[in-house]
């Protein structure tokens, strides 16, 4: 049992170790299969900054991920709260229809969405092709987040709503002043899921972002990975940097992270 678990754990970690070790080695060292840390990290870093606009890609990814997370949480939690607290037969039906959208693969949406944004480019260039808005808009509302907030709202005590009404709070006031602070852990879990999926999103940005200045981290890594004479040490450094934010989120908030994942099946 220990052997099996040990081997699996090793296989799971090995690519990470190799990635970190390789980021400290020159390209030749990586191709020769060097498994010892080297002293080339700073050279790799400076190559990265000089040859590739890593900082800009990081900034692009960060802006997109933060805005997406903020908006998605707001829209998703409002809806999850609305569907649960103000339940009615019509709303339940609408909710079930929204859930169907989880079955739609993104590949099926890609072509019509691209055409939609291409058309928008002519009318309102600020949200057309090659803008951050075009990346953010289609991912702002997801049935998953609505479902997630709705499930968690079932544990929110209704008496608190009554208490709020007696205190003279409006319906939105109850949501903002009572619901949001009480549901902090739900928001944390939702924020982690959304941030990670936005940070790692590849297919839609690949289709909609065209100029180099707009590229996000996954697009940059993908480009580096397909270059013909790759500088392995430098590419590995880029991957380490790209993985750091999500790894940090995971290690600092492991509980919320797992809670968020499991929340989808409660």
């Amino acid at each position: 049992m220990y052997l099996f678990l040990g081997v699996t754990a090793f296989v799971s970690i090995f690519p990470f170790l190799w990635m970190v070790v390789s980021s400290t080695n020159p390209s030749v060292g990586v191709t020769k299969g060097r498994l010892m840390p080297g002293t080339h990290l700073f050279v790799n870093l400076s190559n990265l900054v000089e040859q590739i606009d890593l900082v800009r890609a990081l900034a692009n990814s960060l802006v997109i991920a933060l805005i997406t997370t903020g908006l998605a949480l707001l829209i998703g939690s409002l809806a999850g709260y609305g569907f649960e607290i103000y339940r009615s037969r019509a709303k339940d039906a609408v909710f079930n229809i929204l859930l169907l959208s989880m079955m739609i693969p993104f590949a099926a949406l890609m072509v019509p969405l691209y055409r939609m944004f291409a058309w928008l480019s002519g009318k309102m260039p600020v949200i057309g092709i090659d803008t951050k808005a075009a990346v953010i808009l289609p991912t702002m509302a997801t049935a998953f987040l609505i479902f997630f907030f709705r499930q968690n709202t079932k544990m929110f005590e209704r008496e608190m709503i009554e208490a709020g009404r007696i205190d003279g709070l409006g319906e939105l006031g109850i949501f903002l002043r009572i619901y949001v602070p009480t549901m902090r852990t739900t928001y944390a879990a939702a924020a982690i899921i959304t941030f990670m999926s936005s940070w790692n999103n590849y297919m839609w940005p690949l289709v909609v972002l065209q100029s180099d200045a707009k590229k996000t981290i996954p697009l940059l890594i993908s480009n580096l990975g397909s270059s013909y004479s790759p500088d392995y040490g430098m590419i590995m450094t880029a991957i380490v940097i790209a993985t750091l934010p999500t790894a940090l989120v995971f290690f600092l908030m492991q509980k919320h992270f797992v809670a968020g994942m499991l929340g989808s099946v409660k």
Partner: protein
Amino acid sequence: MSIRMRTRVTGWCFVIAAVVLICLFYFYPMIQAFNLSLKSGVGTNLQYVGFENYKRLFTDSNFITAVTNTFIYLIVQVPIMIILALLLSVMLNSDKLRLKGLFRTAIFLPCVTSLVAYSVIFKYLFANDGLVNLLLLRLSIIDRPIGWITDPFWAKVTIILAITWRWTGYNMIFYLSALQNIDRSIYEAATIDGASAFGKFTKITIPLLKPIILFTSIMSTIGTLQLFDEVMNITKGGPGNATMSISQYIYNLSFKYTPDFGYAATVSYAIVVLIVIFSYMQFKVAGDR
């Protein structure tokens, strides 16, 4: 009465933004896609052709290759991963095990990486002169490098290994949390009755985990049918079209070859239909108790 009306209106106000956005960015595009799938032509120059595109699917060898590849991934990878994840979760759930947290974190770690980042790492690890071949050669397990990326068969193996590496820990966490909710006394009773470890696994664990196994296998099936990032970044669909997935074929049809949006939309509908069929089948299979 007026208060009830007001609450009803307030309720709709809470959900309206989400409803509008999902209709706009999911349902409306699906209608558009259907409309597009009835047209054919290059770029924006499209003409109605009725169901011609759908007929074309059955004679399009690229489409058939993409579907076959996706099915191979599905049939081989999903069961392997689910069995592996189940075994790991049962082991990690045992009381006697030490270093539980360490093993769990290590096995879950791959889920932290972005699909693109890990794909590039796998591409390098499995290159002809990559580390995997280097180690296998040095250990004399093989005497010639394996074409992990360049051979049609091994390239599929690489893709399957990669997906399994990335997602096993993810599924394991679901099983682990479900196992922790199972009452220990059931196992104690079974032990007293003389049940073997294997017997307990098949007679108690599997049946109790059935709903969660169903959930994860549907999620994995949907995920595999949409496979894109890995094939795009590890093999680019090659060699030839040996690893091309359906999603990648749609991408190629729209943005790599001369754009044929109409036919690309037709292929999109094929994935939707497959997802619906598979989810339905899995529900049916798991439904018979």
